[in-house]
């Protein structure tokens, strides 16, 4: 079991967003979490991606409690390398080229050489080879979404967590992207968790969870 959530509650001040949630994710799963706006999808994904902490309950990431991981900064950074995070809150650095933006995790981790082949494969797959030297301001939102996806995958993570990966995308772009994700899931056996309220998208995933009133089912 990759990720295991037990009896997890998250509240902001007096507002309970996630209420005693149970969730298990295994290797190779392709999971979508759906629910109306404000239902707590991003909140859940932030906890799963080791960005924020729960109020109570347990979350085990690869067998280790997230509290332990979050308390140890180096451990946290190493664990996050195993997760590719793609969210609409992620930024591209405006003054860096698309190529450098995608390679940023490699710059940061000082492992540019090792990821070179992965990078080439990813940009081919995402069909953004000709955008490499562009600046982020010059690309469309569909392209931006694909660039973000490439960046999330460039370190070859075991898990991809994507928050609304198809927001701002038109139908064909959205379907392309989800197909792309399905391909990665099939071929590389990468575990994917996405949050969305886009029906065209979640029907393509293997497992669908609905989130409402703080409960997952």
């Amino acid at each position: 079991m990759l990720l295991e959530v037990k009896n997890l509650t998250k509240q902001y001040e007096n507002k309970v967003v996630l209420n005693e949630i149970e969730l298990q994710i295994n290797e190779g799963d392709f999971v979508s979490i759906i629910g109306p706006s404000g239902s707590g999808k991003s909140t859940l994904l932030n906890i799963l991606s080791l960005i924020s902490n729960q109020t109570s309950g347990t979350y085990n990431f690869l067998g280790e409690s997230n509290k332990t991981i979050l308390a140890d900064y180096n451990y946290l950074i190493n664990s996050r390398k195993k997760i590719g995070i793609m969210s609409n809150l992620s930024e591209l650095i405006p003054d860096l080229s698309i190529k450098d933006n995608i390679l940023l995790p490699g710059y940061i981790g000082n492992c540019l050489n090792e990821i070179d082949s992965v990078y080439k494969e990813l940009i081919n797959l995402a069909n953004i080879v000709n955008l490499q030297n562009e600046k982020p301001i010059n690309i469309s939102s569909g392209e931006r979404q694909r660039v973000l996806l490439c960046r999330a995958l460039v370190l070859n993570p075991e898990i991809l967590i994507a928050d609304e990966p198809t927001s701002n995308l038109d139908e064909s772009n959205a379907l392309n992207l989800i197909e792309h994700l399905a391909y990665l899931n099939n071929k590389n056996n990468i575990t994917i968790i996405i949050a969305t309220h886009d029906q065209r998208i979640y029907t393509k995933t293997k497992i669908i969870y609905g989130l409402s009133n703080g409960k997952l089912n």
Partner: protein
Amino acid sequence: MRYGSLLILNYFKSIFDSKANSIPAVISIIAIAISIFSLILVLSVMKGFDVKVKQKIIASFPHIIIKTNKEYDFSRFNEIKSFNKTFESYLGIILNKKFDIVQIKGVKDFNSIKKVSSKLDLNKFNESKDHLPVVVGRNFSHKYNKTIGDKFELLIPDFTHRKPKIKTIKGYIVGVSDISDVNTNRLYTTNKYAKDFIGHNTSFIEIVLTDPFRSKIVSNLIIKEFKELKFKVIDWQSVNFSLFNLMKLERISLAIFLSFLIVISATTIYSNMISLITQKKNEIGTLILLGSKKNSLIMVFTQIGFFVGLIGVIIGTFFATIVILLITKTNIINNLSIDLSFYGIDGFPIVFSATYYFYIILFSILIIIISSLLPSYFLLKKDVESLIRRDY
């Protein structure tokens, strides 16, 4: 390229790419440059003034004075360049039917004046029993229109009787020296003539040193050798102690005051960094999510602020150095016909002091580092969740 340098370059560029960031940055640079420039220049001038005043004092006055009527031989002290027994007294003089006060100063013999005034011509000097021979300075000669051979009357207060009397003696000029004396109204005569014509006087020994700045040490050596002189030896540094202290105090207070300028201009860096970091908040959050260490990001933003400040420091130092070199190495002040004779010092008072440069640059760099470090430190103390959240 390493990731740190990549980011530094990127954000550094982004400062100068947008007007919103570049104008405040340029203002910071100018403000820092101006503060550094004025701090270096003002302190160099103050220090230069101090040096010139000391030079003037060293050149015009004896370095150690010993109040005694006895004879001493200091020739065995090899730090003592020369020593002369002398006295000083004030007399009335009547010249061109006008009354004036003059100082009369004793020398060993007239030839000793020749050491400092090579043009002094004593060939026509012949001794006279009823006239006191004196040497006057060039300025005296001009002022009263008197020259060699001219005679005058001197009025000497005589306190030897219960009722003070005024004694009148006659004097004549035997030579005109070209010493540029501090005191125009000063006459020189020999100690021997003075005793014969004027009578008993408190005399003292004037000592000139090879290294005037060792006057305190030499004074102590003299006292050690001649215990009876304990309270009679005084050196030029002690005499002028309060003046030198005052100049030092003035320098220190100006330095403190001008340091505030640096602090204030550095705070503009602080606010620039705050606004840059706030703009880039979400990017910073993303970088952290992608694995950046907070400390390395703090380093990145500190270095960006530091570079901006450093440009200011370099510009300010550069121009200050240029100005100091222009003044010291060229004749620019004279060419601008700025009249400094009023201050009684030769040349514009400015010195190039490496120590000042060192402390001023060190201080400003420290302030700049602090004001670049704090903004990123405060922001990055926040948790990642709030860094990536958008504040609409």
